[in-house]
C-alpha cells in the first residue's frame, strides 16, 4: 500500500462520510480512554476528496479523537481516487484480517465491492482474497442483506432474526418487511420456527387474499401478542398452532380427533401409540417401555386392554 503519514487537522476529515465503513460497532468509550492515555497507535487511513479527507479505515479511532477534542491526528493518506477498488480493499482488509466479521459487516463489505466489480464471480474472486466468503451464492445473499433496512440488519445482528428469515422477508412488498420482521423477532424463536411462521403467514395471506398487515392484526394474533402472562416462546407456540389450524384445517382436525381418542384410551406411560405421519399411510405403531421381563408382561396386559377398547378400533378405522 502506497501511503504518506501526515498530521491531519480533524476538521478537514468528513466524519459523516460512511462510504467505506465496514464495522457495525459504534461503541467508542474504551478506545477513547486508550487514545486519551497513549494516543493513536495505528493511524487511520484517509483518502483526499478536494479540500477534505474521506475515512477509509479507522472510523472509531477518529470518532474517539473527536471525543477527546484532538485538533490534529496522525493518519496515513493514500494516493488513490476517492472512490476506488484500492480504497475498498484497504477498508475491508483492515477489518477482515483482524477479526471475524459479523454478517452485517460482511454484507457491507460485499456491497462496497459491488460498486467496483461487475459480476458476482468477479466479486467472489476479490472477496475470497480479502478473507470474505468467496461462494457466489453466499455473496448474492449478503448483497441482499446489505440493502435491508437498518431495523432488519439490527435484528440480525442481535440474533433475533436469522439471515434465512431475513432473506425471505426481503422478497416481500416494502410495506410488509418491517412489520413481519418485528413480529417474528418479538417471539424469540429459532430459525426453523421463524421460517415456519413466515411461510404460514405469507401462504395464508396469499391464499385467502388478505393483506399481511391485516392478518397480523387479526384478533387471534393480537390476543396472543398482548397476553401479559406467557413468555414470548409460549406465545410463539400458541400463534404457530393457530396459524397451522388456519393453513391446514382438515389435517389439524384429524390430529385433534386423534389426540381426543388418545385421551379416551388413557394410555399408561409405558405405552405410546404413534399415528402414521400426516395420516398418509395406514400404519400405526406402539412403543412399549419396560425394564424387566415382569414389566414387559405388564405392558402386554395393558396393551391387550387398549386393543380391546372400541376407541382403538375407531382410531384405526
Amino acid at each position, binding site marked *: 500500500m502506497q501511503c504518506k503519514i501526515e498530521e491531519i487537522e480533524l476538521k478537514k476529515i468528513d466524519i459523516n462520510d460512511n462510504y467505506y465503513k465496514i464495522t457495525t460497532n459504534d461503541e467508542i468509550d474504551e478506545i477513547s480512554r486508550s487514545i486519551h492515555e497513549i494516543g493513536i497507535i495505528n493511524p487511520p487511513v484517509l483518502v483526499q476528496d478536494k479540500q477534505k479527507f474521506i475515512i477509509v479505515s479507522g472510523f472509531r479511532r477518529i470518532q474517539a479523537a473527536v471525543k477527546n477534542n484532538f485538533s490534529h491526528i496522525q493518519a496515513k493518506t493514500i494516493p488513490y481516487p476517492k472512490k476506488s477498488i484500492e480504497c475498498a480493499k484497504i477498508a475491508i482488509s483492515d477489518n477482515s484480517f483482524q477479526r471475524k466479521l459479523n454478517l452485517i459487516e460482511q454484507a457491507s463489505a460485499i456491497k462496497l465491492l459491488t460498486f467496483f466489480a461487475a459480476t458476482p464471480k468477479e466479486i467472489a474472486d476479490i472477496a475470497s482474497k480479502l478473507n470474505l466468503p468467496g461462494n457466489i451464492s453466499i455473496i448474492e445473499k449478503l448483497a441482499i442483506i446489505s440493502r435491508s433496512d437498518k431495523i432488519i440488519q439490527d435484528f440480525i445482528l442481535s440474533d433475533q432474526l436469522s439471515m434465512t428469515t431475513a432473506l425471505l422477508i426481503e422478497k416481500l412488498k416494502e410495506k410488509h418487511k418491517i412489520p413481519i420482521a418485528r413480529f417474528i423477532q418479538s417471539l424469540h424463536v429459532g430459525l426453523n420456527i421463524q421460517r415456519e411462521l413466515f411461510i404460514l403467514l405469507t401462504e395464508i395471506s396469499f391464499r385467502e387474499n388478505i393483506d399481511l398487515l391485516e392478518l397480523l392484526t387479526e384478533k387471534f394474533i393480537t390476543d396472543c401478542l398482548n397476553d401479559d402472562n406467557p413468555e414470548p416462546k409460549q406465545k410463539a407456540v400458541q400463534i404457530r398452532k393457530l396459524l397451522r389450524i388456519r393453513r391446514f384445517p*382438515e389435517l389439524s382436525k384429524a390430529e385433534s380427533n386423534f389426540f381426543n381418542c388418545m385421551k379416551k384410551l388413557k394410555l399408561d406411560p409405558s405405552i405410546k401409540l404413534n399415528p402414521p405421519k400426516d*395420516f398418509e399411510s395406514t400404519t400405526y405403531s406402539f412403543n412399549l417401555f419396560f425394564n424387566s421381563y415382569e414389566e414387559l408382561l405388564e405392558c402386554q396386559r395393558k396393551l391387550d386392554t387398549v386393543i380391546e377398547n372400541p376407541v382403538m378400533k375407531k382410531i384405526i378405522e
Partner: protein
Amino acid sequence: MKISKIFIDQAVSKLPETISFISKLKIPSSIVTDTNQLYEIVSHSEDPVTTGKDLLFLTENKGTFLKECPGTSHYTCCGYKILHIGSFCSMDCSYCILQVYFHPPILQYYMNSKKLFDELRQHFSSKKLSRIGTGEFTDSLIWEPMSDVTEKLVVEFSKQKAAVLELKTKTVSIQALSRLPHNRKTILSWSLNTESIIQSEEKKTASLSARLKAAAECEALGYPLAFHFDPLIIYERCEKDYQEVIKKIFNHVSPENIVWISLGSFRFIPSLKPIIQKRFQQSKIIYGEFITGLDGKMRYFKPLRIQLYQKIVSYIRNFSPDILVYLCMEDDEVWKKSLGFTPSEHECKSLPRMLDQKAIQHCNLYDYIQE
C-alpha cells in the same frame, strides 16, 4: 409455438428427418458440436425453464426409446411403457413436473427414428401385451406437423395385435391422423381440467372445448379415446367445475368408445414449489392442504383426495357405469374408499391387468403374450 432458435446435434444434422423438420419451422438454426455449451446457455440463464422452452435441440436418443414408467414407491402404478420421442414441452403448465425433471430443462426432439422403429419392431416381435405412450416426458402431439414420427407410429402399431399406442395431449394437432390406417391400435387421449384451471394454469394449451371437439373428431375417425384428469386441483367449487367437464365429455363422445379415464390429484416434488412461485406468481395451486407423501412428493391430505375422487367417480358413473376409471399413483386405502375396491380385489388382480383388459376389448388385441 414460439421457438426462437433450433440447435442441431452434428450427429443428426444430415438425416433426412432433420432436414425435413427444420424446413417446416423456418426458424434460425445452427449445428452444435459441444452439447455442454448449449446446456450451459440454458442452465445459466435467469429463467432456465423459459429459456429451455424457447430453444429446440434436435438430437439423437443415445439410450433406449422404450422405458418403464418411472412411477413411485408405495403407490399403485399403471405399468405403462414410455416411448421416449423427446423431452420437455412447448406449452407452459404451472404444475408441470418437467420443469424440474430435466437438467437442464430443454426442448429436445430425437431425430434418430430408425433406431426407435427398430426397437419397437423388436418389441412387437416378442408379442408382449403392452400399453405404450409418448406423452410422459413431453406432449405427444406438439411436434405435429414438423415430424412424421407420430404418423409412422400409428401405422406401425396398426400392423400388429399385441400393443396399443396412447397419444396423450393438450393440443388439437390431429390433422395428420385423419388419413392414417390405425386399425384401432392407437388411443387418442386428452388431459383435461376445469375451464378455470386451464385458463389460469395451462398456458399455451388448447381450450377445453377445442380438446373435446378434437376428441369427437378422432372418435368419428374410429380411434378409441381416453381421458386423464391429472392433476385434479382442489379449489372452492372445484367439484361443480369437474362435474361440468364430465358433462361436456359425454356431450361430445360416446362412453362406449372411452377405453379408460384416469384420476390423479396434484402432487409435486418439493423443488417444484419455488419454480411455481417464481414463474407463476399468481398461481395458488401450491397453497392447498399438502402433506409429504410416502414417496417424498407433496400430496393433498388423504381425506381431501378421497372426497374429490368419490365425487368425480360418481359423476362419471352417472353417465356410464362401465367405463374403467382408475387412480394414478394412489394406495389401496384411497382405491377402496374412492372406487369401492382395490386393484387386487378386482377380477384382473392388478391395475396393469385391468388396463390391459380394456385395451384388449377396445383395441382388438388378440395375438399377445400376457406377462
